[in-house]
């Protein structure tokens, strides 16, 4: 293991991770893919899911991303996520609470409101997030 893969994960709010790792597995729209060092140039869109960072054979970090892009260049892997959280810092109870609150808002808005679609999307994101925990 002489070479390491440079991996950075950024969201519009901040840079969540930047550093050298062995292996990253990310949820592409067309399926999950793994990136090792010296991967060929590759670009894909991402779906909601878990990005796993591996050191050796053990998963050292799990991050949940909400859509975005992955860009592999000779310089390394960059993931541009719309939104991303480190799963280690997420509390299932809090997510459940947010989900309940959101469900209430959706019910209160009623079917006619134009907001429901966006709220439903938010809800399914939280559902995915909870499932990943």
């Amino acid at each position, binding site marked *: 293991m002489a070479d390491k893969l440079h991996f950075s994960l950024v969201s519009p709010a*901040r840079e969540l991770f930047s550093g050298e790792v062995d292996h990253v597995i990310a949820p592409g*729209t067309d399926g999950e893919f793994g990136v090792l060092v010296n991967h060929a*140039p*590759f*670009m894909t869109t991402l779906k909601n899911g878990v990005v796993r960072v591996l050191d050796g054979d053990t998963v050292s970090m799990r991050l949940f991303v909400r859509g975005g892009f992955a*860009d592999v*260049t*000779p310089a390394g892997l*960059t993931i*541009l996520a719309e939104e991303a959280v480190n799963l280690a810092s997420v509390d299932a109870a809090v997510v459940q609470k947010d989900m309940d609150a959101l469900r209430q808002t959706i019910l209160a808005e009623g079917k006619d409101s134009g907001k429901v679609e966006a709220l439903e999307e938010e809800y399914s994101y939280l559902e995915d997030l909870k499932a990943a925990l």
Partner: protein
Amino acid sequence: MSGLKELKNRIGSVKSTQKITKAKQMVAAAKLRRAQEAAEASKPYATRMANVVANLTAGMTEGAGGPKLLAGTGNDQTHLLIVMTAERGLCGGFNANTAKLARQTIQALQGDGKTVKVITVGKKGREALKGEFEDLFVDHVDMSQAKDKFTPFAIGLGKDLSKRYDDGEFDIATLIFSEFKNVLTQTPKTMQMIPATAPEDAETIDLNGAIYIYEPSEPEILEELLPRYLNTQILSAMLENAAGEQAASMTAMDNATRNAGELIDSLTLQYNRARQAQITKELIEIISGAEAL
């Protein structure tokens, strides 16, 4: 006596003004730190995004179709200007400078016979341009409820722009905002957003002749990427603007505090002189009265 009383009142009122400006300066300084941090934190994403767009567009052959957001409408008749200013005043020339650039840009475009439409973001710019260009306004984004959360506003505006563009409402969209250089300098700047252009300073990565693999396909990725790139550009402009506003406000309030201090000094001097003169006058009156006896 009335002169003395008046002076004393004035000193009091200037002192309370100074307290207010001092407080505003400190508030702005605290907000500036937060705004600056937010702007800094969003930079990596914006830079990477710009690099990815630069990479993708470099691979695309000139004018070979591509999404409309990138290729343009093939026309440059209708220009849409998005003028981004602050919601509040009391920040020196910050809003006025942006409005001035907007005015010049509008006049230059109109001089060339182009049609100009304007979307204002932030109340102050709207007020400044209302007199001359009210008939050009097509929309206004009210940021007063934004507080520190700009993302929904950026995404909203981005969606709105894409929709207007698809409806053929304009050919070229340009953003006018204040670039945050440092605490002392914010320069108004224009940036073309649609058709999308990669910034000149973006690094294009040398692939050593390797070929990119796209998944799904290149057009589909671009289709997804460009609206996001648009949102990112709007968001970073908003963040820079917010930081600039606080910096300008801090500088302006600092100046006001200093001016008030100078005014207080000179008024105090005047007051002491008048008091001294009064005492001297009274003494002379007493002494000459005693001498007359």
